[in-house]
């Protein structure tokens, strides 16, 4: 059997695969030809009704094998499909693709597909945020060790840490919303973007050509049209969109990496199916394989982004074809991989196992160290020498946290001051600062507006995907 992309066999969702499948693309080409023909007729060209009705009857029944036969002979994919469509809709043959260049269907279809894919990803981001929001809410005030330099630092809460991940994804969602709202169609521009062939068709009528551009774009669901293009739309659009996908991958990689570190600590675990095998050799193992896969795919998406920059940078004058093969690979794969990453992220977030007991043990072990800071302050207030007390704490801390506060209380330096740590100083909740309130603010003040925007911009996808 020949090579098949693992994105198809293993990783990407059926929904995203269907979006980027050949059938959907050719369906879009035919719709673009229909929109063009309709626009041209409405603006006065003599196109018979039968041409439109036959084309309309064959929007979704292209025979990909027959088109491939044409392509072997013609060495041109768009022309192959025009011929195949002509066989199926003979009355439309003479009027199909009138005045257009290949980029009319290829570029415009890519823009439709990218927009729909962004909407699907937006719905998936919504699902990640919903799933993480539940964890953040439930553990909003559960104290846990915070780490700087991956060394235990002061305390934070489990929920607060989750909001750090959520905020990254929320920023990605805002970027996606912006890209979806501002994406402009290539529209009807002709071979070098000057619309010369259309001006010819409409006998020099400037207004009609401009109207055709706007009408066709609106018919394909785009309110905004690029005012100027070369033969293709500027490849800067691809670079901007892939930057957002790369951003999603970065957020997911950060989340997944944190999870892998915490799973090592035994504090936070990704879901594990009852029959799942951790290791073929070591049956006791429970590996964070979903998080590892997320990191792996994320690295791929992040690296794909560079292709789009280079393509945008390398375009010569009104166009060169060195974008084609690269875009054909990079754009769908970036979307398929980002899709796989977000499905994983949702699955992991919805099934996160929070080990409160282990988290509590780790906190308890560190509490005496944290309490020494307050002890030092009170020692100084009671008349002690800050540097002297600091040195006592330092030397005693090096012996570990066991009985640290009792040991300090027995040291002459503290004893003579009558200062000792109280139980209240060992209450972890007193060390989490505003973490629980920050969680509340994020969940109740920031997130609802964003979720609202997500549902408005990706109504179908969001409704289907946000249910966790």
């Amino acid at each position, binding site marked *: 059997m020949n090579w098949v992309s693992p994105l198809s066999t293993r990783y990407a969702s059926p929904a995203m695969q269907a979006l980027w499948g050949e059938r959907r693309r050719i369906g879009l080409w035919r719709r673009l030809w229909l929109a063009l023909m309709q626009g041209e007729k409405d603006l006065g060209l003599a196109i018979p009704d039968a041409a439109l009705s036959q084309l309309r009857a064959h929007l979704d029944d292209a025979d990909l094998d027959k088109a491939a036969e044409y392509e072997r002979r013609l060495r041109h994919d768009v022309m192959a499909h025009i011929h195949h469509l002509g066989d199926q809709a003979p009355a439309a043959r003479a009027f199909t693709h009138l005045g257009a260049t290949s980029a009319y269907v290829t570029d415009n279809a890519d823009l439709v597909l990218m927009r729909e894919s962004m909407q699907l990803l937006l719905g998936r981001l919504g699902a990640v945020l919903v799933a993480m929001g539940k964890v953040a*809410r439930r553990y*909003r005030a559960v104290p846990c060790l915070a780490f700087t330099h991956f060394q235990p630092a002061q305390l934070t809460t489990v929920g607060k840490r989750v909001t750090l991940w959520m905020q990254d994804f929320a920023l990605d969602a805002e970027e996606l919303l912006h890209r979806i709202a501002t994406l402009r169609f290539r529209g009807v521009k002709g071979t070098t973007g000057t619309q010369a062939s259309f001006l010819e068709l409409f006998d020099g009528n400037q207004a009609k050509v401009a109207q055709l551009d706007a009408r066709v774009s609106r018919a394909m669901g785009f309110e905004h049209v690029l005012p100027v293009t070369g033969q293709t739309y500027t490849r800067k659009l691809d670079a901007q969109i892939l930057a957002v996908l790369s951003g999603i991958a970065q957020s997911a990689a950060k989340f997944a990496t944190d999870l892998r570190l915490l799973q090592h600590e035994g504090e936070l675990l990704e879901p594990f199916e009852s029959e799942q095998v951790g290791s073929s050799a070591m049956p006791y193992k429970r590996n964070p394989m979903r998080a590892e896969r997320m990191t792996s795919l994320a690295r791929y998406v992040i690296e794909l982004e560079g292709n789009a920059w280079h393509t945008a940078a390398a375009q010569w004058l009104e166009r060169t074809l060195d974008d084609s093969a690269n875009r054909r690979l990079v754009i769908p794969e970036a979307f398929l991989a980002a899709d796989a990453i977000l499905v994983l992220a949702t699955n992991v977030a919805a099934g996160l196992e929070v080990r409160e007991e282990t988290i509590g043990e780790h906190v308890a072990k560190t509490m005496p160290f944290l309490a020494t800071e307050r002890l030092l302050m009170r020692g100084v207030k009671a008349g002690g020498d800050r540097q002297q007390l600091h040195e006592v704490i330092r030397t005693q801390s090096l012996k570990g946290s066991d009985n640290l506060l009792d040991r300090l209380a027995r040291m002459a330096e503290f004893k003579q001051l009558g200062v000792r740590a109280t139980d209240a100083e060992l209450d972890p909740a007193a060390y989490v600062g505003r973490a629980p309130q920050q969680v*509340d603010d994020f969940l*109740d003040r920031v997130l*609802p507006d964003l979720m609202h925007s997500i549902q408005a911009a990706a109504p179908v996808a969001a409704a289907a995907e946000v*249910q966790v």
Partner: protein
Amino acid sequence: MTGVLVQSKLPLPLLRRGKVREVYEVDDTTLLLVASDRVSAFDVVMREAVPFKGAVLTQLSAFWFDRLKSVMPHHLITADADEIVSRVPALAPQRRELHGRAMLSRRATTVPFECVVRGYISGSAWAEYKQSGTLAGESMPQGLVESAQLDPAIFSPATKAEQGHDENVTFDHVVNALGRLTAERLRGASLALYEAGRDYAAKRGIIIADTKFEFGTTPHGELIVIDEILTPDSSRFWPADRYQPGKSQPSFDKQPLRDYLADLKKQGKWNGEAPPPPLPDEVVRATSERYRDAYRRITGRELE
């Protein structure tokens, strides 16, 4: 544990007497809630009291308050009678009466909505859905059967009615009344509290089908959960091993009582309205045992 309590009488100002609870004022910032052993069925309060019921409601609430405190701060100061008496010495003579059933609480201004969460479709929600396919006027997935699980669970607020039944309202109604921030917080906290409780109880053989939370605001403006929480009286508890979607489910706690009364109604011996019929000892005992079993399963402890 002392005998049953039908109605408490304490030397404190009585603020409210509910179907089951008396609420007393301790001072400006503190309340005492006393759960009696009164029981109601079919909206009628029975004459007989169910032993241990008040203690189950209070101790189970105390268990949940502590367990869920990281989700939402609560009003409970202590449910330990000795601790209560040491803080309110005037109650010393009633020490035995308070044991297990009294809750010393922070006083808060009550939020004027019942925060109902439904994880399964039952009762009035099922009636509405069957008739119009909606819940509190909002559209729902098609094809649900009675007692089906709702996933995700649904926040279904209601007004607090002084008389009669609470009335369901939409989320937007709560937003308009309290502002978006408070409304979001109530919804988020209610769902999180319910889901945490549902998941925990499910592992112990009890389905918490739906529940009702009450919230209050402290003088510092902090939103806290008050009253009782995830008890058989504020929730529908179903035995998980007998769960069969497609019909109404037996109640984990009140089924012996309901069965007995339903039988009387069927035989035409009771019209379903006050005054209630007398209850045989075995019905009272069986109901009491169900309440204690719920407590035992959820907390893993015997009721003291």
